[in-house]
């Protein structure tokens, strides 16, 4: 039993005790609720990092707290995706938002930065030692809206290939250096999966069938498919390419090379327990597999089609809108952001490729294995289409998930799934933008 005051028994003698208790508690909370006692600057940070990432962030935060005794720091992890973003938006609308939050770069424009975020003071950031020159120019410019800086990039995170080194060794897929041999083309890709399936007896690779966007967007991108036209108002999806990618996904499931139905926890579990020797996923589960002490490594996702493109996104820090933001808290917040970037080698241990270039060049990062194995793909990260309903965990991905997961399960033909997805996307395009 926890030590918090248990609720009074709702039995007979409640009336008076309840009254007294409730009024007492209410009194107590008005006192603590205002919290004007703390002289320290306050930084509350919200993030959406679960699993291994979450654990890693916790350690980094502990270090930050130890080095910053003068900052009252609290971090919260909320459930990834729509729950996180909905809460963040509601908190910004409510005026009591946290001082700083993580945000996927792909969602910045759809978040209505001018009303829901406060601009990040570039001068304070420079004072803390972070300037434009420290980033890839394209990344930096994606963080600007109406000439103001609204986000500071922390990393980028492409879709990659995880492989179980023992299983792949048995399957004869490893090269003499112990790394997985690069495969190129559909046939080689399928051969690789079949070889692994042969060894595991179950699956070749674990995938998240409930969220098939990343794999599809990677394959479609590798086919050089386009999504919106220049103006961002017309859907110009290439049916033939889209269906080719979907058919490959259907084939994987139909041949038992991947599960027909599997959610995110199952994706992780199947790779951990050896049901699958490969896993197609973002690079953020490194910590989980290291903790599980399993033999694994990572590599860029195979170039199955024509060009190297890998679905991905970048985590950034933003300052959600507060009704009355205190200068002191803002200074502490900027200090937090700067500190996190400078210490992002540790963050990179969780799998992400740092955005802050001085860290990318540091030996501390380069020595990370397997985290530095796929850093070459950073320039080929394929962001989601640009629209207010697009981005990590946003509606467009959900629509893709709803339509495409049926393809894995064999419930829906690629053509029907694509039609459903296109209809849903058109509907979103027709919807007046709320931002």
């Amino acid at each position, binding site marked *: 039993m926890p030590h918090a005051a248990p609720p009074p028994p709702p039995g007979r003698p409640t009336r*008076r005790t309840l*009254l007294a208790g409730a*009024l007492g508690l209410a009194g107590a909370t008005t006192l603590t609720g205002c919290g004007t006692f703390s002289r320290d600057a306050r930084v509350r940070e919200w993030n959406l990092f679960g699993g291994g990432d979450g654990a890693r962030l916790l350690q980094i935060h502990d270090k930050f707290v130890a080095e910053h005794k003068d900052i009252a720091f609290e971090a919260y992890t909320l459930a990834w995706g*729509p729950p996180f*973003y*909905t809460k963040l*938006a*509601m908190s910004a*609308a409510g005026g009591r938002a946290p001082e700083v939050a993580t945000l996927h770069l792909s969602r910045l424009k759809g978040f*209505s930065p001018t*009303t*829901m975020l406060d601009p990040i003071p570039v001068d304070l950031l420079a004072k803390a030692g972070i300037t434009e020159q420290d980033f890839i120019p394209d990344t930096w410019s994606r963080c600007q809206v109406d000439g103001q800086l609204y986000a500071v990039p922390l990393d980028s995170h492409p879709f990659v290939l995880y492989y179980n080194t023992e299983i792949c060794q048995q399957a004869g897929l490893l090269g003499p250096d112990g790394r997985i041999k690069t495969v190129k083309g559909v046939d080689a890709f399928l051969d690789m999966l079949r070889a692994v399936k042969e060894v595991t007896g179950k699956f070749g690779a674990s995938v998240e*069938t*409930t969220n098939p966007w990343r794999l599809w967007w990677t394959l479609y991108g590798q086919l050089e498919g386009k999504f919106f036209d220049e103006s961002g108002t017309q859907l110009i999806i290439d049916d033939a390419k889209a269906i080719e990618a979907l058919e490959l996904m259907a084939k994987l499931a139909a041949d038992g090379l991947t599960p027909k*139905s*599997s*959610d995110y926890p*199952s994706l992780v*579990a199947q790779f951990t327990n050896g049901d699958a020797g490969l896993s197609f996923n973002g690079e953020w589960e490194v910590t989980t597999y290291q903790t599980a002490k399993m033999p694994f490594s990572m590599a860029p996702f195979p170039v199955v089609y024509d060009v190297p493109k890998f679905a991905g996104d970048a985590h950034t820090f933003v300052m959600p809108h507060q009704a009355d933001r205190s200068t002191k808290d803002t200074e502490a917040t900027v200090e937090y952001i700067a500190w996190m970037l400078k210490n992002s080698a540790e963050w990179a241990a969780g799998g992400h490729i740092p955005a802050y270039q001085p860290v990318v060049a540091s030996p501390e990062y380069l020595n990370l294995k397997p985290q530095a194995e796929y850093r070459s793909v950073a320039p080929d990260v394929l962001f989601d289409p640009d629209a207010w*309903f697009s981005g990590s965990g946003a*509606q467009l991905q959900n629509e893709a*998930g*709803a*339509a495409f*997961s*049926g393809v894995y*399960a064999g*419930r829906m033909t690629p053509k029907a799934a694509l039609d459903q997805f296109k209809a849903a996307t058109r*509907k979103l395009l027709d*919807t*007046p933008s*709320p*931002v």
Partner: protein
Amino acid sequence: MAVQTPTRTGTTEPQPTRQPPRNGPPWTEKWGGLFFVAPFGVLFAFFLLWPTFSGLWNSFFNTSLAGVQQEFLGLANWREMFGDPAVWDSLQNTLVFTAMSTPPLVIIALVMALLANRKGLLGWFLRFSYFAPFVMPATVVTLIWVWIYQPGFGLVNGLLTAGGSAEIDWLNTENRAMLAVVITTVWWTVGFNFLLYLAALQGIPDQVYEAAAIDGASGRQQLFRITLPLMSRTTGLIVVLQLVASLKIFDQIYLMTDGGPNYATRPIIQYIYENGFTSYRIGYASAISYMFFLVIVIVSIAQFRLFGGRKEAN
């Protein structure tokens, strides 16, 4: 808000905010009652009337959560709603859930009440078991059931595979997910109806049964000729309450399937939530809310009619 603080003993005069004279001037006699109604009235006006009307107002604007400039749209939100299949699909999901969940929630509750209407430790144990899930929050219930439905190592599938059958991915299969939610809901909330039935059963005077026993009625006859007929009005009440409660489904589905797979379980309230908060579209969400509000009012009024009619007939 003026909350009266009771004094320790509860017998002395509580400190009133005003001191009405014993046989006061006519205005206290005339208006004094308003003071009693006022605290509730103010809250009612602020947190029920106001949002009811501001919701209607918003439904004619493109109001956004992001607080960007809003424009008058006339009936555009309403027109969009009527042409939006997702509205009708989610309304249908809500109705399907209601239709699937109400019968077991009534019948099982009645069976449980008949079984648990006994004294002693066994009675206590039965009542505890049947009602216990009801006192737990939705989140706890769904955490447990998502784990139970888990493919691979969940309890249900563990038993299925142990029994030699194929595994079912309950929450990710379109025509199973709603069933899974209904099973969870029945487990969770049947206790409340059970309690209502139990109270009604315990309200039947023993003399009725004693008289029947003297007349030589068997246990079965007592059940079908006395108990169940006497339960019919309670059943009416429970059905009414249950239908309206089921129509408001959101918690379990949001927490268990998030409306999936492929929106096969998304209820209308979740669609309202997603539009209003996830997509910032307060105006559009208000229009859908209003449409659903009308559905509930119609169902309620129809029930009151039916219900009232039956009462007069009795």
